[in-house]
């Protein structure tokens, strides 16, 4: 048995590596959640008083709430006292030492996705100290953005340097008591991204979390706040197509978008967290609250998401269309394979005059995957001339998967127009036959048909993302054909 020597070695190396750093005890707080935990997190992050109060308020409300049970997802109850709510940015000690130690399955996936070699190491969480030139990449980006006055930094930095903006906007789109997971996030959020685009500025590049090195390992309770001031526009990318190594089982993130007059925010997500193994063991619980607020006239918020990872996805990126002539969009591809479960959709709340929204949702279920579209389109009495078009299609691959649709439509204004259409079917035998006849393998044929099915959504993604997303879909569907 070489178990003991290994463990010993681990301990030795641990001591060695951290000889001059703060000791472990002071870097982590004990498991469990209490008011003290919240205070401690806030203190560690050196937060101003108002933010602590805000966190405590959220915590007190959270105590009185119960986890939502209406979604069509099943999982054992989560023990909220068995979670470590704060640990300093994970040191790289616990990661694999080199690519050789990384799960070969993961490496194969990287290969298929065509991810450059040097990036594979970061994604797999390999302890590489000098990551190619990412630091310089980040710095160049920052300089360029600062020139036009854009603030793009981690949430903690924003709290320190721009408390007035945080105070003004935090929790105004997703209030602390919004839902169970949002309240939990508000109480204990660790970090996240903060973006502010000043009036009239068009962000010169796609902002991406992936390149924002300073906020690596933002952890399980991520908080993102994006503000586009009058006439500003920004496109923001979250996540990346490669499977990320992540040890946290529960993720409860909150994303708030604020678009003022004539502003435009495009938020794209590719989520490919660990979905658990074929039998459904392990995997991330992704319980996210995302909401955008079109506050000003003619503002525009667009959500695009490609969800292929996570054991359970519970996520409804929404738009509140307050300003007149504002536009909300939701484009989604969600794929569930093996034992994955996804309950996802959107809410479009039309309040302003002549507001418009478009919903395109494509769900693909394979294996034992479970999938639900759950959406709400509400036309308030004041939403004169508002319009919505919703299309949600499901594709079924395999006879043990499920696809559900729960669209809520509430109309209180007679000049509003709402259209909803949904369909569920499997891949047509004739389509498959057509492709096979032309020499395509069954897998390629399915992948091609699935990509065609998702095209409407992919075309909304930024170019390079779209290419990756297509490949990702192919990889995620492996083993589901036949």
């Amino acid at each position, binding site marked *: 048995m070489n178990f003991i020597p290994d463990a010993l070695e681990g301990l030795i190396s641990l001591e060695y590596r951290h000889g001059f750093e703060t000791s472990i005890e002071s870097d982590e707080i004990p498991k469990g959640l209490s008011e003290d935990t919240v205070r401690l997190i806030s203190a560690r992050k050196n937060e101003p008083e108002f933010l602590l109060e805000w966190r405590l308020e959220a915590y007190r409300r959270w105590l009185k709430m119960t986890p939502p049970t*209406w979604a069509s997802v099943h999982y054992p109850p989560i023990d909220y006292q068995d979670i470590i709510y704060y640990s300093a940015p994970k040191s790289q000690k616990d990661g694999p030492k080199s690519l050789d130690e990384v799960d070969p399955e993961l490496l194969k996936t990287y290969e298929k996705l065509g991810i450059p070699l040097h990036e594979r190491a970061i994604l797999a969480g390999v302890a590489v100290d000098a990551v190619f030139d990412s630091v310089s990449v980040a710095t160049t980006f920052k300089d360029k953005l600062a020139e036009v006055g854009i603030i793009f930094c981690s949430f903690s930095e924003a709290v320190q340097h721009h408390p007035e903006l945080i105070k003004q906007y935090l929790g105004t789109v997703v209030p602390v008591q919004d839902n169970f997971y949002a309240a939990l996030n508000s109480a204990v959020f660790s970090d996240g991204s903060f973006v502010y685009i000043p009036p009239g500025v068009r962000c010169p590049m796609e902002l991406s979390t992936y390149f924002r090195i300073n906020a690596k390992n933002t952890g399980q309770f991520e908080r993102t706040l994006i503000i586009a001031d009058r006439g500003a526009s920004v496109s923001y990318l979250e996540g990346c197509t490669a499977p990320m190594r992540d040890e946290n089982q529960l993720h409860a993130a909150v994303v708030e978008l604020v678009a003022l007059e004539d502003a435009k925010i495009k938020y794209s997500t590719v989520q490919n967290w660990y979905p658990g193994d074929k039998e459904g063991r392990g995997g991330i619980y992704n319980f996210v609250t995302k909401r955008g607020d079109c506050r000003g006239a003619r503002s525009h918020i667009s959500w695009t998401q490609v969800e292929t990872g996570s054991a359970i996805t519970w996520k409804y990126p929404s738009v509140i269309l307050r300003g007149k002539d504002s536009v909300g969009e939701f484009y989604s591809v969600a794929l569930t394979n093996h034992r994955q479960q996804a309950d996802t959709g959107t809410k479009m709340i039309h309040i302003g005059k002549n507001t418009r929204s478009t919903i395109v949702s494509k769900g693909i279920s394979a294996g034992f995957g479970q999938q639900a579209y759950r959406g709400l389109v509400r*036309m308030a*009495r004041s939403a004169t001339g508002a319009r919505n078009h919703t299309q949600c299609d*499901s594709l*079924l*691959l*395999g*006879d*043990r*998967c*499920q*696809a*559900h*649709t*729960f*669209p*809520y*439509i*509430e*109309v*209180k*204004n*007679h*000049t*509003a*127009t*709402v*259209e*909803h*259409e*949904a*369909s*569920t*079917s*499997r891949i047509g035998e004739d389509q498959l036959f057509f492709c096979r006849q032309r020499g395509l393998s069954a897998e390629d044929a399915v992948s091609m048909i699935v990509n065609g099915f998702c095209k409407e959504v992919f075309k909304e993604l930024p170019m390079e993302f779209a290419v990756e997303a297509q490949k990702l879909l192919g990889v995620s569907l492996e083993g589901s054909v036949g």
Partner: protein
Amino acid sequence: MNPFLTQCRASFEMQATLEEGVVERGQRQAEWTRFEALGWPTTRLEDWKYTTLSGLEKLSLQNSVEPREEVKGVPPSLPLEGIPAPRLVFVDGTFQPDQSIIDGLPKGVRLRFWPDLDAPERERFTHKMAPARALTAFGALNGALFTEGVWITVDAGCALEAPLHLVKVSRTGQRMSHGAVLLELGENSELTLREHCVGSTDQPTHSNWVTAIELAPRARLTLVKVQQEGLLSYHTAALHALQRAGSHLQVFSFALSGALGRNDITLRLIEPHAECVLKGVYRVADRALQDFHTSIEHDSPHCTSDECFKGVLEGTGRAVFNGRVRVALDAQKTSSRQSNHNLLLSDKAEVNTKPQLEIFADDVKCSHGTTVGQLDEEQWFYLRTRGIAADLARTLLIQAFTLEIAEVIPHFGVREEVRRLLSGTVGGNDHV
């Protein structure tokens, strides 16, 4: 406890004094317990999210406890005129042999009434009604308080040419009526049932009927229900159907008036090649609400369903549509269509619709579509350019919108009658 519930409890206790067997008493008690356990439906419950019963709960209504309470002579207001034979008339939830005409029924059709059933028959009747009563809290209330039941059986191979009319009249104000209809169709039999729900009082009433249908292989049933009750009438109804191999069921439901209507319809296709068609129209005007909760359950492969509901909303009218289609595991080759279209004609009307698909099989074709909108200006303009007055053009367009549903009623006579009803004033109660 609200006044409505207080009165229900009083009725329930009064029924204990009636002569009934121990078994029936126990069943009533069980349903009452279930009703209490379910609790009064409030908008906090998902199934009642958009339908408030605040109007009903303030009412203190009497239950017709005396069975076979006969109407002495036809009161002038009893709207039976023009309803041909064969017909079964129920007034305030009680069967009226004098008003009913059932002599001409063919031999294969048997009618039995709850008061005449013997103990084993009562047990079977109750057993077969159970799934319909399980649909809502009002179903449980029906099980506890019902005074009348009719059991219609059509023997195998028997086909009725003329439609059987089922007339339910709410004649007395401040009354509630709880009745049960059990419909069993044998193999290859055929029946058209026309259900009239009418009111002849301006007082508040509550009609709470449950209907259970069982179709044997290849049986064909068409059910056409029209709700035309008074402006203050409350209507709750539950319909549950079980369809065996190759059976064919068509349900048409027209909710044309009343203060509040709630229809819970569940059609279960439990053997292969069964087909169902579920269509309806709801029209609501000021202060009225119509709510349709439908569920089509494909439990077996090779079944087909087609559902379409259309709504016309005026004044402060409100409507709720919740259409669920469930395809069970292994119910392959299912084909299911569902649509819901709404015309919002006033700035105070409101519609809440939720088409819901739950699919557990893969080789299926399922679709649903929903629209909410106004009259098409171009169509209106087209009619105006041809010299048709504005009001008439509007009426024509609304009629065309709803008539589409009536067009597909197979029986000519019933179809024409429904067409006439739909051509009346929109949302009005002029037929009462």
